[in-house]
């Protein structure tokens, strides 16, 4: 085919004029499909614009509302909590001097928020919370992490289809039911097995709480390991690694950030868990390192006391301060988890 380079539009020189792009196209009357589309769009364009404007703003408002609620809760909690610092000497949140049985002045950490000389040490509550949350996290890491690895790497599709929803169902059991089981059944078994002084203790609470966070850890671990590209597994098997070596030396290290994040998130849940610990830990605000001792967590203290104190009083404000501290701890834990997950995304280039 020869081209007429002189012609401004570079049309093929020997091409007949009759083959205009119009001919041979589908028509409705004298209109092409494109004419119809342009016309009908014109008719709708204003309505569409208004619709999209409204939808956009609604979605924006929804997103903002979520942030606003969190901010308001945050402000309220800290405002009320801060009042406690004026009503009670800050040192008293750690401990007070009391007289012991031999009339010696000793420094004691006690939570006894009653009467004129109420004692507001949050140390026993912090100890209580961690004495439940740490063992619960350890138990759940072993069981939940194992379960996540099993689901992601070993289970066949069929088994996975059954086990994964079942585990997520476990997360849906009302915590009061778990608390009830701990209180009536588990506490007895634990006491018989370990011959503990206290029937209700931190360990019983930890087992109960771990039932709630096992699904969290299992599910996120499963997601994290499944996000590890299959190419890495192939590479590992291609070098002669066995399944176990591939899981342990390639897949888990590649997904370790996700697994770690799941553990931290689980611990956040454990610290915030209330109903189970109210029912299963005995609620004695003791300063102790013994996990078979009764303890009182921060959450349980707030739940048990806040409804029964006069508003604005020292105890009321002290409880808010406890809440603010709890909020801060879980906030930091979640933040760290989020950062770790982001780092993993970058590392694996997801």
């Amino acid at each position: 085919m020869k081209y007429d380079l002189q012609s401004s539009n570079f049309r093929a020189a020997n091409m007949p004029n009759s083959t205009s792009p119009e001919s041979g196209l589908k028509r409705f009357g004298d209109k092409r499909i494109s004419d119809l589309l342009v016309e009908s769009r014109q008719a709708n364009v204003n309505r569409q614009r208004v619709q999209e404007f409204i939808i956009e703003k609604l979605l924006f408002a929804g997103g903002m509302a979520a942030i606003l609620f969190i901010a308001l809760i945050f402000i309220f909690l800290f405002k009320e909590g801060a009042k406690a610092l004026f009503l009670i000497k800050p040192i008293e949140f750690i401990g007070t001097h009391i007289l012991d049985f031999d009339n010696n002045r000793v420094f004691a950490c006690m939570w006894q928020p009653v009467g004129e000389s109420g004692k507001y040490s949050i140390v026993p509550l912090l100890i209580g919370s961690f004495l439940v949350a740490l063992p619960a996290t350890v138990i759940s890491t072993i069981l939940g992490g194992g379960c996540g690895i099993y689901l992601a790497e070993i289970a066949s599709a069929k088994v996975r289809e059954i086990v994964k929803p079942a585990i997520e169902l476990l997360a849906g059991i009302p915590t009061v039911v778990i608390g009830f089981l701990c209180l009536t059944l588990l506490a007895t078994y634990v006491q018989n097995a370990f011959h503990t002084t206290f029937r209700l203790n931190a360990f019983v609470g930890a087992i109960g709480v771990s039932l709630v966070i096992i699904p969290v850890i299992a599910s996120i671990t499963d997601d994290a390991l499944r996000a590890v590209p299959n190419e890495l597994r192939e590479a590992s098997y291609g070098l002669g690694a066995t399944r176990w070596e591939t899981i342990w030396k390639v897949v888990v290290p590649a997904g370790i950030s996700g697994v770690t994040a799941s553990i931290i998130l689980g611990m956040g849940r454990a610290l915030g868990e209330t109903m189970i610990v109210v029912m299963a830990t005995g609620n004695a605000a003791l300063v102790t390192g013994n996990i078979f001792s009764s303890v009182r967590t921060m959450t349980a203290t707030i739940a048990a006391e806040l409804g029964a104190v006069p508003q604005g009083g020292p105890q009321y404000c002290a409880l808010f301060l406890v809440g603010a501290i709890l909020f801060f701890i879980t906030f930091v834990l979640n933040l760290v988890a989020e950062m770790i997950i982001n780092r993993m995304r970058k590392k694996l280039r997801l």
Partner: protein
Amino acid sequence: MKVEHGIKGQQKTKIKLEELTFYYGKYKAIDNVSMEFLECKVTAIIGPSGCGKSTLIKSINRISEITNDVQVEGKVLLDNKNVYDRDVDLVDLRRRVGMVFQRPNPFPKSIYDNVAFGPRLYGVNNKKRLDEIVEYSLVKSALWNEVKDRLNQSAIGFSGGQQQRLCIARALAVDPEVLLMDEPCAALDPTATARIEELIEDLKKYYTIAIVTHNMQQAARISDYTGFLLNGQLIEYNITTEMFTNPDKKVTEDYITGRFG
């Protein structure tokens, strides 16, 4: 086939496929293929997407069966031993038959740990010996000069071409006899591709190489023998120069000249 005669005369057969048929579930991916891969030669497998090229070479180190439900009929003989026999040790098979994949897939570990991964699997923990193996493998894969001062850096930060040469080094570190390459340049730019091709040219002195490629020019440049696969069947198998200048079958010619595929 005339070529079979020619091949047998000159060189030792490293791998021999005998009436290999390969199923994924019920889907027949490879249909009754018989061919040979000669020692220290590059054999290219060409063919359109989905024709079973990758499956064919993956049947040699039995890597497909990890993630898929597969069924195999026929034989894959490596040094006259069927790799699908019951007594075959998969770990040993995969040490002898190394593999390089389509997308560079270094582990998210340091360069050193990537290359040392294989030897460590087999229990080599002596630091000095590992150092030597790592250096040897990186030299062989033409990467040593670029990374020798950065062995402890994560492999993820390197370019695609460097990553792919790292993957080759990783495969070489367990001293394989065969290298399977599944479109090793598909994700690389022309410069990186040229370097890999040079490398293959060098590596074939020591290893039997089977390479799958989409790129006809690449097959023509680097391979000694070429097999043309279509719908799971081996249409033609010949010395590369023969195949590209004087193909036996019309369909081969159509594919090579770019009329389909």
